[in-house]
């Protein structure tokens, strides 16, 4: 036994010695740390950010998005023409684009990839992003014709998202169900090297790639190997960056950001145009929260500045509107200001009198409703703080937190009165259409907001070819929705990319919450 123990100890010490400083990592590879992995890397099957951040590097889209997250730039399409009625888009592709296996990319590949996204058999949860497609066809090897049934003003922006990544038909058909699991063939700056689920995904530089979007200084990738490594624990991830076991991460806990800013050897890159908002939504067909007076009082009961500071450790901006002012077509309407005394008066004036247990009552109805939220740290703290705010004006909110296992299916039910949700978006129209169109009841329109005028304004905005017409429709819609107090905006999360001294050129992008985007300007320090 003693001998065996000595041998084991010696082996472990040898391992430790062998590891040495910097722990034996490959110094030529850039290690990006994140908290979770994706279930697959097929652009039409996965909606996870973890999938998108790798797909942005492995693939390209017809258009790209500038750093302001508003301006659409060329991608694989170097230019496009739009018909006067906005029904036909003709994309002119770059010449000389190749897949990772060396095969030239043609318009047939583009048409195949986009048709695959919208095909009913694919059951893609994001097919709607491609708009009301009539046909997508290849006119010649470098021209794609995108024909719509109705005008869709957001098409070019939607085509910059990773869901519309152009893939190799041969790879899709060869790998079948394993496409994006065992392999991938795209035209992006980095190529699939290997994936160990829940551990790491390795990418290699795409030799010959020089067609990066014009938003970067360099159209060519600068790094030979990129390792996307999963470290689920926040603290381990933070220490890994500090101890040279990782180079870049956008997944740092809120509480650590101020400390990171003061830590030598670590650098923060922010993105002021980032849009990832937290909201509390009301299911207006339920008792109590169906009363506009209650919703207005709840709106007035919340100190949004304090919320951003306390819950998000200052890593969120207070939100006074439904839509981030940086987003296209956002209008500063302003929800009701923090005024708990005013909220109490409003409730009293409308017959909601304080009961003996501190909860208001009207016609035998207690001012009480149930909130569904996720049991993650942010939702949990938000729920508790909001519960306290609401209690101060005499309204009871019963909090029911759900594990991610159950949460999304529970949010598809009619059981709750309110819910908390965080979501990324890039324009007012995208967010409002997704969450307030009556076609999307019961989910993602979890408010059950069924309003013909809303649907009409959304349709007008969607079909508008003239930006002024779209903005006018969306302005009226934002005013109407804000007046109806369907949401309480809770905070706008900030995006930070944290990097070590080993890497230069890190910049936070933030399209669909993806920090590094294509990472073309990143390079390892000499």
């Amino acid at each position, binding site marked *: 036994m003693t001998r065996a*123990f000595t041998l*084991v100890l010696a082996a472990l010490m040898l391992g*430790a010695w062998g590891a040495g400083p910097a722990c*034996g990592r490959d110094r030529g590879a850039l290690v990006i740390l994140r908290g979770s992995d994706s279930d697959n890397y097929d652009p039409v099957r996965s909606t996870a950010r973890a999938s998108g951040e790798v797909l942005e590097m492995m693939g390209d889209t017809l258009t790209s998005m500038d750093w302001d997250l508003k301006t659409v730039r060329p991608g694989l399409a170097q230019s496009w023409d739009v018909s006067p009625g906005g029904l036909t888009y003709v994309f002119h592709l770059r010449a000389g684009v190749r897949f990772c296996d060396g095969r030239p990319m043609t318009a047939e590949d583009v048409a195949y990839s986009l048709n695959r996204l919208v095909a009913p058999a694919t059951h893609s949860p994001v097919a709607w992003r491609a708009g009301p497609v009539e046909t997508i066809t290849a006119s010649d090897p470098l021209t794609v014709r995108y024909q719509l049934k109705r005008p869709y003003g957001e098409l070019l922006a939607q085509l910059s998202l990773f869901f519309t990544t152009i893939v190799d038909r041969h790879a899709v058909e060869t790998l079948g169900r394993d496409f994006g699991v065992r392999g991938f063939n795209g035209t992006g700056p980095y190529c699939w090297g290997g994936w160990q689920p*829940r551990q790491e995904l390795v990418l290699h530089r795409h030799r010959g790639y020089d067609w990066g979007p014009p938003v970067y200084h360099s159209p060519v990738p600068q790094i030979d190997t990129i390792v996307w490594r999963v*470290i689920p624990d926040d603290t381990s991830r933070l220490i890994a960056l500090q101890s040279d076991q990782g180079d870049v991460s956008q997944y740092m806990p809120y509480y650590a950001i101020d400390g990171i800013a003061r830590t030598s050897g670590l650098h923060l890159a922010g993105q002021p145009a980032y849009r990832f908002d937290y909201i509390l939504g009301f299911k207006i067909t339920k008792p109590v929260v169906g009363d506009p007076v209650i919703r207005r009082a709840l709106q007035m009961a919340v100190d949004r500045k304090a919320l951003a500071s306390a819950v998000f450790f200052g890593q969120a901006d207070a939100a006074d509107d439904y839509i981030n002012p940086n987003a296209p077509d956002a209008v500063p309407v302003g929800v009701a200001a923090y005024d708990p005394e005013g909220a109490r008066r409003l409730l009293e004036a409308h017959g909601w009198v304080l009961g003996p247990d501190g909860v208001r009552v009207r016609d035998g109805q207690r001012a009480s409703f149930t909130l569904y939220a996720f049991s993650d740290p942010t939702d949990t703290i938000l729920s508790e703080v909001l519960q306290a705010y609401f209690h101060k004006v005499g309204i009871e909110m019963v909090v029911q937190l759900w594990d991610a296992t159950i949460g*999304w299916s529970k949010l598809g039910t009619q059981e709750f009165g309110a819910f908390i949700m965080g979501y990324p978006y890039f324009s007012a129209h995208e967010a409002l259409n997704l969450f307030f169109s009556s076609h999307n009841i019961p989910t993602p329109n979890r408010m059950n907001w069924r309003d013909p005028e809303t649907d009409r304004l959304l349709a007008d905005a969607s079909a508008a070819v003239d930006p002024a017409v779209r903005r006018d429709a969306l302005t009226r819609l934002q005013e109407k929705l804000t007046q109806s107090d369907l949401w309480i905006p809770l905070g706008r999360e900030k995006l930070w990319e944290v990097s070590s001294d080993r890497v230069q050129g890190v910049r936070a992008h933030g399209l669909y919450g993806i920090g590094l985007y294509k990472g073309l300007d990143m390079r390892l320090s000499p």
Partner: protein
Amino acid sequence: MTGRARFRNAAAFRTSPRAGTCMKRYVAYRVAVTMPVLLGVLVVGFLLMQVVPSDPAAVRAGPQASAEVVAALREEMGLNRALPMRFALYLRQLARGDLGRSLINDAPVATELGRAIGPSMELMTACLLWSVPVAVALGTFAAYRRNSVFDRAIVMLSIGAASVPVFFVGLLAIWIGGFWWQLLPFTGRGGPFWTRAGLASLVLPAFTLGFVLLGAVVRITRTAVLDALSSDHVRTARAKGLSEWSVTLRHALRNALIPIVTLVGLQIGYLIGGAVATEIIFSWPGMGRLAVNAITSSDLPMAQGAILVIAAAFVLTNLAVDLLQLLLDPRIRR
């Protein structure tokens, strides 16, 4: 009867034809008993995953999917079939040795489990290889020097090891070994243990997991050795003039092994599936993390497969412990 005589008798018993038949019967009985247990695990595991009010289709579709898309996915994933039919299909698949495919990434469950079981076994073995000998040595030494300063220090260490949460030990190990000394990696498995990177990456998680096990094994070893030291055969050994160290190691510890083996055996099952905190802190791609991920993403076939493997590990370890006790304790064989 002295300890030496007992073992001589036991050896004679092992070689006798009657004892051989008894042992075979006992082994056959224990193996037969595991079958209904595993079947029970299958049924309970399947039903448990069905009663959880989760919807894998909603998870896969994501937060922005419409109700129609979720419904279509539910149909495609076979979730609309009746419960008995799903169970029957599951059993038919199992009979063919097929654990099905993941609802989330469509990968074969057996492949995914195969990927996770290796790292789990590696971590468990490394943990046992350092912690059990150390714990047994410390526990025996504490019993040998009972009521001394060493005894008290070892008892305090064991209580501390058993009381400190595993995540705290893990973070401390990362802080010292990874950050302060920058000596050892802690960001996942570097490869198989026979490679330099693999061995280095194994050190901190194995230390963390083993440290938690250490406390319990030290305590039980000390108690068992102390019990054995007060028994008749040990008194006889002392009367024969053997040294106290020899009595402790050769007579007391040998008899004390039975409860130690039982405890370590039970811990093995836990180490395969229950080392979730260690696996998360060190990003170790083991069974615990796989099972938790499967459950939190409503991946029913994957969760059922993981439950089955973890349960089988428990059952088989218990079987091995029972058989080992058969060798260690002649009384069981009678």
